[in-house]
């Protein structure tokens, strides 16, 4: 592939991040930049994203579009197929979630992941994703491992048994938002690709 041969080189350099001669921030400065970045993200109480995900569990796989909106701890998640037809809508707040499936049936429970498993046969780690997809760990939960990317953002995170790799961001600074995240947990692999971020305040 001639067109984007630069990209292959770039991908390689990113995989090796930390050992290449990247114009990285000095270590102390980077920790400080990371904490500012994390605080800024957590301060935002209204945000939304449009994107898609691919989920693989063992040999089974699903992929769908994802529209996720949050305002003051309430979330509204639309999952739709390639033709734009709704597969499921999740709405609620932590501890009280309702799922409506494509046949209009409603389910209610305290955990989104449990609901999805019951109604759809597969699930997304919603309570973690609410933070991970914005590039920060879930607050108040142990961080098993964390690696920064040289610019004050997460390159890798392990939390709650999930391993997250951040493969693309839109900006290099405090306003950076992840554009592609690969998450694995045992034989589960989840890739989220963001097309659009919208964050206010």
């Amino acid at each position, binding site marked *: *592939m001639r*067109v*984007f041969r*630069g*990209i*292959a*080189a*770039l*991908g*390689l*350099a*990113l995989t090796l991040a930390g050992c*290449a*001669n*990247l*114009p990285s921030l000095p270590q102390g400065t980077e920790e400080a930049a990371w904490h*500012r970045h994390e605080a*800024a993200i957590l*301060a935002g109480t209204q945000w939304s994203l449009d994107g898609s995900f691919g989920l693989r569990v063992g040999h089974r796989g699903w992929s769908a579009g994802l529209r996720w909106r949050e305002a003051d701890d309430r979330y509204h998640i639309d999952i739709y197929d390639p033709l734009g037809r709704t597969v499921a809508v999740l709405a609620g707040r932590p501890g009280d979630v309702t799922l409506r499936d494509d046949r209009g049936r409603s389910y209610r429970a305290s955990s989104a992941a449990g609901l999805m498993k019951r109604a759809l046969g597969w699930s997304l780690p919603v309570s973690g994703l609410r933070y991970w997809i914005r590039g920060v760990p879930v607050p108040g939960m142990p961080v098993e491992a964390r690696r920064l990317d040289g610019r004050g953002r997460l390159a890798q995170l392990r939390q709650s048994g999930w391993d997250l790799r951040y493969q*693309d*961001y*839109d*900006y*290099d*600074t*405090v*306003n950076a938002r992840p*554009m*592609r995240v690969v998450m694995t947990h045992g034989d589960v692999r989840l890739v989220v*690709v*963001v*097309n*659009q*971020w*919208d*964050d*206010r*305040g």
Partner: protein
Amino acid sequence: MSRVSESWPAPAKLNLFLHIIGRRADGYHLLQTVFQFLDYGDSLAFESRPGGQVSRAEGPRDLPEADDLCVRAARLLLQETGLREGVRLRLRKRLPMGGGLGGGSSDAATVLVALNALWRAGLTTDDLAQLGLRLGADVPVFVHGFAAWAEGVGERLTPLPDLPVPWYAVVRPTVAIATAELFADPKLTRDCVPLTIRDFLSGAGGNVFEPVARARYPAVAQVLDALSAYAPARLTGTGACVFAAFADEASARDALRALPGEWSGFVARGCNTSPLQDRLRRMSVDEGAA
């Protein structure tokens, strides 16, 4: 996914002041302004496609593809270089249309700069800026990517590498401004005494569009007044966005949070080098290292 590039930033700009000092024979206004970039804005990713075609990924937009400045920028680059590459543009919008933040021009500049690099088309920054000028008067400043004093119709640039880089709170009044109307307003001041860079650096200059935007759009006046309670607020470009500078990030966020909820906004750092140029340099360094 391997055919899709990483994201490239298309940052916002602010006009730290904006004066009109006269008019050219062809009707264009002669401006004086200072552009500074923000570390916040749109971004673009590029998907390689066979066959010399330029297209864009579907988005929630009502703009015909042929009028899309990004598509036009990519086609212009192909035409200029004779390359036969194909590309699909994936634009991720964060900046409001008609906000005075330069979103459309910045998107087009990022297409030119990124594709020139990805395709190794070999055009210089000056070449790209010349191409950019054919797309819009504000495109060259985004291509060059340095904070600048600008004159003419906005295309004659003098770098200002040492401007202060405060944190800005940027607030968007819920109103769409008709730029042409503002330019046509009989009350618009078109004969400002020309300033020097030194005048600006010692605090001279305002935005001539502010009084006319205030008078025509009460929402703009409200945001200017509300934000001014925290720090001096000013209009960027012809609006509608309003900004104020703060010494640190926390103060900027506090001010934004204290404003009424119906206005959207964001906090960003001023940059004297555009995040696009930083990204370009990072690509060169990465390739050198790989």
